[in-house]
């Protein structure tokens, strides 16, 4: 070997495979303003649609007069429920097994509900038309309080199903009841509570909030009457699901629907569902024979598509005197709005909420969730978390703090005492989930040592004394959270959407010159998939990441997949990518053996080549093997070098983390300063640390927003009062804290590359960490639980209630 020959390590580094802080491929176009987002699309003859929306939360629609609107210059047509009825599309099925009005049919059930769709030659003409659609309403009493939805005499939200005793998920106990869902062992749990030394009980509310990506939901529908084909460009996190649902709803055969999701300006769950605006644009294109664009404005986005949370959790924990947890139970009311259009795996009306036993060794546990209808927007999604996981993590992490307080224990010490121990993995929780891997003590110890936890508590003690002496008006809070997620939905035995198992897929083609393309059923919305999937392939196949193109979002070219949400891309499609690579590698090995005239078993893999064992000078690189695959395959072998894998994960993955934050709260203004936020994450094998850190920064910032100010708030008349960026809190660079990130690595034993997914961890762990910090600040003054969001007004109010302003 001469000195010029690169070593294995040098060749491996040149590939930019897993573990490399590879710069993003996507950025080249984005930094030049050359991204290709839906609203950038301009087709010949394209029309614009705009929606007439209800000013009332609950009202009968007596009459819709579209004549003045239709007479506006440039207006082409106005569609109402009556128009949609002619094509049987006034209502549509939801992902959750309910039905939903596309346009108001006799009644409106929430403010800003879609009432009519105006189609015009320009955006402006469509908006002019919307102004002139005259709708006569008769207002009805409304209810926006989920805790009163099932009381006697509550307004009937859904007249269409008020006498139905059976819903999509079993018996209904009230006309505003959607479903009841339970998990765990009720009898054993009740028995454990009956003999518990210490118990706590608290109503923990996770308010309604909204993912609010910077780009709203939008689409362009183009129906070709001659071919009978529909092309639908849209902001879709799950393009194939949109195609299948679109076909089932419209009756256009699925092979004649082409769904394309171009670059997406952030999703966070908002872009999973199928919304009325899409159906209207499709019908409008069918009716007019021209492409139709529909773009939400921000108010429409915040008030009508994809709320999150709205979980009202009555949480209890039982423990022994010396601080060992013995049971937990939780009764939850879930506000699903006017239609049950939650984007959940179909069998799980409360999602994966039974991860609520968290990171702790609870012998028994039980949850019951009742979903209810109210006069609020439908379409619940998981805002940067797996289905209902953040609600569960918030609830258990607040409750653990409350129990520690009652026991007089330090919240970190109480957690350490109850964490699932390393030797218990794989660990079966009281709800039956099998946690794949974890080393919780190491993570927790590392977090506590790094921040100097003991010293912080000493400082806090001194500050509290100073506060009592009247020397300061600041109170110091230390927030601790240890979370476990359940992501990567999911195994077909657990998960499906409308009967389609939640596998995902990758198709890889290696070209004759040794470069390749990988197509997937997932869809990046900023996660950097074009960069990271190529890194997996680089490590698996020894082809430089720069020589792999990654393509998503075109249902004609990508293999079927369920899309990107619930941190499922890496756990499911990442696995599919690795498995497809392994099929290709196996074929390449046979070709290499043939070329080198040795048995397959006489070869060994070395970074980017197969070499003869004991004789490394004799080798064939992947580039050579790619050429050979199209040129001199062994007799009887099919030419070509490509593979597809549909990966049905054997289990979920369970990322975890230990977060600690320090805040100082001014009790006279209610203002909170975040002094420090430390996040330790364990997502198993790390594919691109730079992207992981970026995901954590972003997720923590969203968590900060949620904990400190985000709420989709309704007044008692059902008016949504926080539907613009004037009122809905999105943190700017000024108030956003600085983030410290850290990690441990505990690979998933069942995932081909050991990766668990990261995008949602910071949201799941961050929210309870902030909330625990605020609550911790006031604990020494006798406070037990202050509800989110912890904006200055609420925090000031909490201080006022504690008599701190006297």
């Amino acid at each position, binding site marked *: 070997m001469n000195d010029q020959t690169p070593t294995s390590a040098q060749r491996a580094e040149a590939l930019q495979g897993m573990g490399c802080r590879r*710069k*993003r491929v*996507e*950025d*080249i*176009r*984005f*930094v*030049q*303003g*050359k*991204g290709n*987002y839906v*609203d*950038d699309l*301009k087709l010949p003859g394209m029309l614009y649609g705009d929606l007439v929306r209800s000013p009332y939360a609950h009202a009968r629609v007596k009459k819709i007069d579209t004549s003045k609107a239709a007479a506006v210059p440039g207006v082409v047509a106005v569609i109402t429920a009556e128009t949609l009825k002619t094509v049987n599309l006034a209502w549509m099925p939801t992902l959750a097994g309910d039905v939903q009005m596309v346009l108001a049919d006799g009644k409106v059930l929430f403010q800003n509900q879609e009432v009519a769709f105006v189609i015009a030659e320009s*955006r*402006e003409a469509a908006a002019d038309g919307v102004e002139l659609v005259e709708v006569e309403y008769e207002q009805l009493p409304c209810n926006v309080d989920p805790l009163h939805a099932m009381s006697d005499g509550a307004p009937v939200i859904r007249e269409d199903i008020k006498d139905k005793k059976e819903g999509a998920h079993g018996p209904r106990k009230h006309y505003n009841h959607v479903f009841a869902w339970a998990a765990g062992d009720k009898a054993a749990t009740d028995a454990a509570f009956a003999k518990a030394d210490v118990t706590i009980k608290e109503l923990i509310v996770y308010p309604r909030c909204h993912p*609010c*990506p*910077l*780009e*709203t939901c939008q689409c362009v529908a183009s129906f070709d009457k001659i071919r009978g084909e529909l092309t639908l460009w849209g902001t879709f996190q799950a393009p194939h699901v949109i195609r299948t649902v679109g076909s089932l709803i419209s009756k256009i055969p699925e092979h004649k629907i082409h769904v394309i999701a171009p*670059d*997406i*300006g*952030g999703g*966070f769950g908002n872009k999973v569902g199928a919304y009325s605006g899409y159906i209207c644009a499709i019908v409008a294109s069918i009716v007019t024979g021209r492409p139709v664009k529909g773009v939400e*404005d*921000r*108010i429409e986005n915040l008030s009508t598509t994809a709320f999150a949370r709205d979980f009202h959790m009555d949480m209890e924990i039982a423990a022994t005197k010396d601080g060992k947890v013995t049971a937990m139970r939780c009764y939850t009311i879930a506000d699903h709005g006017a239609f049950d259009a939650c984007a959940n795996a179909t069998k799980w009306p409360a999602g994966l909420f039974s991860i609520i036993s968290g990171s702790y060794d609870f012998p028994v546990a039980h949850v019951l969730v009742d979903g209810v209808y109210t006069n609020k927007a439908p379409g619940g999604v998981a805002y940067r978390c797996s289905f209902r996981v953040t609600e569960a993590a918030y609830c258990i992490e607040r409750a653990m703090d409350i129990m520690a307080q009652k026991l007089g224990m330090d919240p970190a010490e109480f957690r350490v005492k109850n964490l699932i121990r390393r030797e218990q993995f794989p660990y079966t929780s009281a709800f039956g989930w099998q946690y794949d891997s974890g080393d919780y003590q190491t993570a927790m110890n590392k977090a506590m040592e790094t921040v100097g936890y003991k010293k912080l508590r000493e400082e806090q003690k001194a500050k509290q004394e100073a506060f009592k002496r009247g020397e300061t008006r600041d109170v110091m809070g230390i927030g601790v959270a240890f979370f476990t997620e359940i992501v990567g939905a999911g195994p077909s035995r657990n998960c499906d959407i409308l009967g389609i198992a939640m596998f995902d897929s990758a198709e890889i083609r290696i070209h004759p010159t040794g470069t390749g393309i990988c197509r997937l059923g997932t869809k990046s*919305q*900023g*996660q*950097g998939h074009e960069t990271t999937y190529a890194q997996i392939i680089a490590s698996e196949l020894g082809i430089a990441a720069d020589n792999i193109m990654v393509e998503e979002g075109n249902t004609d070219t990508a293999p079927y997949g369920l899309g990107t949400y619930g941190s499922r891309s890496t756990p499911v499609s990442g696995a599919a990518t690795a498995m497809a690579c392994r099929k290709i590698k196996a074929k390449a090995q046979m070709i290499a053996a043939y070329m080198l005239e040795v048995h397959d078993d006489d070869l060994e893999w070395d970074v980017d080549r197969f070499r003869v064992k004991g004789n490394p000078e004799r080798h064939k690189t992947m580039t050579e093997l790619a050429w050979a695959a199209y040129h001199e395959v062994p007799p009887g072998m099919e030419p070509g070098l490509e593979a597809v894998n549909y990966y049905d994960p054997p289990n979920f993955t369970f990322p975890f983390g230990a977060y600690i934050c320090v805040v100082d709260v001014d009790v006279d203004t209610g203002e909170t300063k975040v002094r420090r936020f430390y996040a330790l994450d364990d997502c198993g094998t790390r594919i691109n640390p*730079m*992207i992981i*850190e*970026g*995901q954590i*920064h*972003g*997720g*923590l*910032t*969203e968590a900060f927003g949620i904990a400190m100010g985000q709420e989709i708030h309704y007044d008692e008349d059902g008016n949504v009062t926080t539907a*613009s*960026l*004037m009122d809905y809190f*999105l943190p*700017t*660079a*000024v108030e*956003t804290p*600085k*983030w*410290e*990130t850290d990690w441990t690595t505990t690979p998933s034993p069942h995932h081909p590359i050991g990766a668990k997914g990261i995008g949602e961890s910071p949201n799941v762990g961050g929210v309870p960490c902030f909330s625990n910090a605020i609550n911790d600040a006031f604990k020494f003054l006798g406070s037990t639980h202050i509800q989110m969001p912890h904006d200055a007004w609420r925090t000031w109010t909490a201080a006022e209630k504690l008599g701190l302003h006297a």
Partner: protein
Amino acid sequence: MAKSQISLTVNGKTVEALVEPRTLLIHFLREQLMFTGPHIGCETSHCGACTVDLDGKSVKSCTVFAVQANGSDVRTIEGMAAADGSLHVLQEAFREMHGLQCGFCTPGMITRAYRLLQENPSPSEDEIRMGISGNLCRCTGYQNIVKAIQYAAAKISGVPFREAAE
């Protein structure tokens, strides 16, 4: 609706156009001139995705009528790279420091950062954070955007960039 004649410079080129008086500058840029780099993220001037440079000031082009830009010199993200296609140091910096994810806020953010560095070539971290507070990002948490602007400022001034420890 009667249209008005306007004449302005966009990314160094003179543009003559007829626009409705109510046409917003962002719609004029995106839909008549096909400069789709600047984006629309709200309609209340909060998000800053539509930020462009107008006569040496950052403006939110969703809050300016196209007719108000008559006679002006407008620069969008598309006018940021050099004539030979080489990236502006801020564009390079955003990629180097991972200052973007979905890319939707990026054109407005870079255009704003460009003006910020014209106004203040060596801003402190707090000055950067204040300077971009009219531009929202939902993905990055700003930390790497701040770093990217520091990187660009250092490179423009010819001083070595030292990454602050996390």
